């Protein structure tokens, strides 16, 4: 590719550009894609909801305590845990990923904010969602499912 070698042209263009923002595209596209997500989003979201519920209970935190520690809106946490159709905000998932030290992109995918075609990832999410059941205290199986899934998310 032959690029313009003219000094005057470059200097003039540089003066006009003057360090302004030039960004194109962005997160909006990822969000748009998520809105048109394929049918695998629902099982992923179920796994996301169950995952959140279990890690919160594992830390013996009420929803209010968890929201405060993670620095997210309590109302949104309530929506996430009670409405599987609800799509959480990017910032919320980012905060949760940071708090739990889970790779952000994987949690985004689990929350239905990013599309993932990885069959192993999908199977692990479905398996986790199926194995975990809502009970008052974590059973050995839940504990084991949770630990296994955390390990999976962190290692891959």
């Amino acid at each position, binding site marked *: 590719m032959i690029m313009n070698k003219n000094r*005057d042209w470059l200097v003039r263009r540089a003066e006009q550009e003057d360090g302004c923002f*030039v960004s194109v595209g962005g997160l909006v596209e990822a969000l748009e894609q998520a809105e048109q997500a394929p049918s695998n989003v629902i099982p992923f979201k179920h796994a996301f909801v169950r995952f959140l519920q279990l890690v919160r209970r594992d830390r013996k935190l009420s929803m209010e305590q968890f929201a405060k520690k993670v620095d997210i809106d309590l109302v949104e946490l309530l929506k996430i845990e009670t409405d599987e159709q609800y799509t959480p905000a990017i910032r919320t998932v980012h905060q949760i990923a940071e708090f739990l030290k889970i790779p952000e992109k994987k949690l985004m995918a689990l929350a239905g904010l990013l599309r993932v075609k990885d069959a192993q990832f999908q199977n692990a999410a479905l398996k986790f969602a199926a194995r975990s059941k809502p009970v008052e205290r974590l059973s050995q199986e839940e504990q084991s499912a949770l630990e296994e899934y955390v390990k999976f998310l962190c290692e891959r």
Partner: protein
Amino acid sequence: MRSPIQIVDAATKELVEAELFDEVTVEHFLETQTEWRPVVVEAAKRMLESGASRDVLPRHFHWDWTSKGADLRILAFSFFGISAKGRLQGLMKLESAARSGRIVSQKGKPLIYVDYLETAPWNIKPLMKALGRGPEFSAVGTRLIEGAVRKSLDEGFKGRLALHSLSTSERFYLDVCGMTAVGRDPAKQNLLWCEFTPEQAETFLNEGAA
């Protein structure tokens, strides 16, 4: 492809040797995460602390170039980067299929679509101002757009080019590059569709040349 180019030192106005390349790898995306993102985040925090409106904050605050890594293998996409002084200064992703002109005279004619374009945060004046220093290099955005226009010429699209500009970048594409603002696109978060006709692309490439 590796083309020697020059960009401009923002402080001294001296020309600086750089390179435009299309052998973009996942490592380049990772570099934006490790080198660029912390600077953007810190600058955005300072801007918020100083009372800046969220509207003027960089819209690429949350951008994740790494999600584009998988697209490297797709032929309809091409990637370009600019390096200088041993660091990545800008990245761009182009799409060369399934897009056509929206300007009335260009309707239906193929063009190159800029899907992503970003320069390193240390080249963006508002961000560096928030961090108490000046930008390092200028004309990185110009060089990337020049590369995109030349790609359009190479593909036989006569320089036709289009993109959806973020609100903070509209000044660059309309006033600096001279693209036409075709209209807000409700299918794309109401972002502004900006387009180069072949004549405008020609003007962009040559205007100001002695």
